[in-house]
């Protein structure tokens, strides 16, 4: 589904990702953990197509060999890439329903599919809202405006449920959630797991992975994946912290520099 090779990314002249390599197979859920500033969010934004980043080296092949980095952000969305934002954006005056239906129909148009009318869309939306226990009143509110942190994150998962992506990237969807909200969000995400859908779950804490059990866990540090393993790696991290990986990463970077 996703094949990232030796990805180097700069922001404002500073290199953040320094040769990241990662494969995610169809239907797999991969967790990416790592300390603050290790490049987790940069990876998410680069995959989604934000143009503030300069890609200096490497390649990203998506869903049968498409060159993801060559595609515009909206075309990536149409091709099934979805990013659940760490900080969902408010759009005052634009209704949630209207926004999401515009998005859905834009994607359907690009794919050459028929657009959904208001009635079909609403019944679809209502069904998906239940997944994240969202109150129907959300639909008539403006996009994320006046939403609490937890409501915003639920809204992201709800949008994901409606848009049914092939590759979902969840950027710290657990941050700022209390345990009840966390469970709701995790249940929503779990119900969207399918053999056709790959997910990258970015998190700072192991806690989320108690609820969303990943197929693989990667540790991102110093702009590289420094360790990969199964879910037990997350538990190990919780006990030892990221410090050791910081050192490992430093060594890896030094070794890379010497080569």
């Amino acid at each position: 589904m996703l094949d990232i090779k030796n990805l180097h990314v700069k922001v404002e002249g500073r290199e953040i990702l320094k040769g990241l390599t990662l494969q995610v197979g169809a239907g797999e859920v991969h967790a990416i953990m790592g300390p603050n500033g290790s490049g987790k969010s940069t990876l998410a934004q680069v995959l989604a197509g934000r143009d503030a980043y300069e890609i200096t080296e490497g390649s990203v092949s998506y869903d049968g060999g498409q060159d993801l980095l060559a595609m515009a952000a909206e075309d990536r969305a149409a091709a099934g890439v979805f990013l659940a934002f760490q900080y969902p954006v408010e759009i005052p005056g634009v209704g949630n329903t209207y926004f999401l239906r515009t998005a859905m129909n834009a994607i359907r148009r690009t794919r050459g599919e028929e657009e959904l009318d208001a009635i079909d869309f609403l019944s679809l939306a209502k069904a998906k809202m239940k997944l994240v226990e969202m109150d129907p009143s959300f639909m008539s509110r403006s996009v994320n405006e006046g939403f609490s942190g937890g409501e915003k994150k639920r809204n992201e998962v709800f949008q994901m449920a409606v848009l049914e992506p092939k590759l979902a990237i969840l950027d710290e969807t657990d941050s700022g959630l209390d345990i009840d909200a966390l469970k709701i969000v995790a249940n929503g995400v779990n119900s969207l797991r399918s053999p056709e859908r790959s997910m990258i779950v970015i998190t700072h804490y192991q806690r989320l992975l108690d609820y969303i059990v990943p197929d693989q866990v990667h540790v991102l540090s110093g702009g590289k994946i420094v360790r990969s393993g199964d879910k037990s790696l997350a538990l190990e991290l919780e006990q030892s912290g990221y410090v050791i990986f910081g050192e490992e990463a430093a060594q890896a970077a030094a070794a890379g520099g010497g080569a």
Partner: protein
Amino acid sequence: MEEGSTVLERQKQIQELTNRKYDAGFVTDVEQDFFPKGLSEDVVRLISAKKDEPDFLLQWRLKAYRHWLRMTEPKWPNVHYPQIDFQDVYYYASPKTDEDRPKSLDEVDPEILATFEKLGVPLNERARLAGVAVDAVFDSVSVATTFRETLAEKGIIFCSFSEAVKAHPDLIRRYLGSVVPYSDNFYAGLNSAVFSDGSFCYIPKGTRCPMELSTYFRINAADTGQFERTLIVAEEGAYVSYLEGCTAPMRDKNQLHAAVVELVALDDAEIRYSTVQNWYPGDKDGKGGIYNFVTKRGKCAGPRSKISWTQVETGSAITWKYPSVILQGDDSVGEFYSVALTNNMQQADTGTKMIHLGKNTRSTIISKGISAGRGQNSYRGLVKVAKGARHARNYTQCDSLLIGDKCGAHTFPYIEVGNPTARVEHEASTSKIGEDQLFYCLQRGIKEEDAVSMIVNGFCKEVFKKLPMEFAVEAQKLLGVSLEGAVG
């Protein structure tokens, strides 16, 4: 479901608008009747004679003209343009058929009918939008008023200003200049001297006007100023909703539009006045376009009366207008809802004045300014509470949205409170369509142009919902068209 269908329409519009340019910019080839260029007492007399006006009106025009000669152009607005040569303007142009004015629609020049048809204003009653009576003003004269009989049954008068002068001279005499005197300001003075036509509307006591009334203004002739005058009088307990639309052909030279609108609401009467202004804005380098220098004012003369202005200003090279309300009657209400957009080289200095004279008078001001390209957008507003206006209240909200980094937004609020029991609130915000907002939309598959249009429409929602349905749809389309090329 209501939201659903609106949404559907909006979506269609977004598709449509991506290919639209200023599509009202065509010229209609009709034989025109001009007076020589320039302004003098003779021209004023000629206009008056041409219209066969009663002496009181000629005298009023002449007083206005003589007063205007001593006035100077206002320099305080935050707009910049070369000196206007007022002697290089035609003050009167009308389609030739004016010789013997059309008595029914069948007699209107088919070219003119076709023009309005093209603009989406069908004058043919069979093809009309249900429930909207239209008065169409082509350059200096009113060419047709629809639905007149239906309205007459209720005692409502809706006709061109010229006809009103002939048929209802007493009403004109009583109310003309009663809200905007000719000495008010330079452009109102000029208009008072040379105004050629416009609409007149009178709603008798206790009558609710059963349909939206609408005037459609069109400047067609080159080098012509348009100086129309609208007067609306709502008697005790009357209600009327009035719409005004404007377009002009694309021309390289700037054209002057100096209109005056006066509204009078007696006890318990309500007037809602909506404008969608789409005069030609000039090209992207600022060549050509309309100078829209307009004086609009309403007087809540009676207790519990209400006047509400809603405007969507997307056109014109320069917009200078402050639709205002004089809150004279106790418990009267004034409202101003505005969207002003400036793109490319457009400039706007617009806002309102709320003059609280009566007790318990209330006013609301919601202003949304959008600047894109190198556009400059100023909000200028005065809230004045007179000494005797006990418990007057005002709420002002003034938001600016910037698209790109070469445009400007400015706010000039003036507040004068002469009574300690008054409560005046002012809120202002300036925001920029951020990279974050755009990227959020793009990531959800929405194209950039559609995303900007959506964000801007969201920003204007509070104002759009005050517009009658058909106008709201038109306004949204216009915003999209006017924003073309604003990003990227």
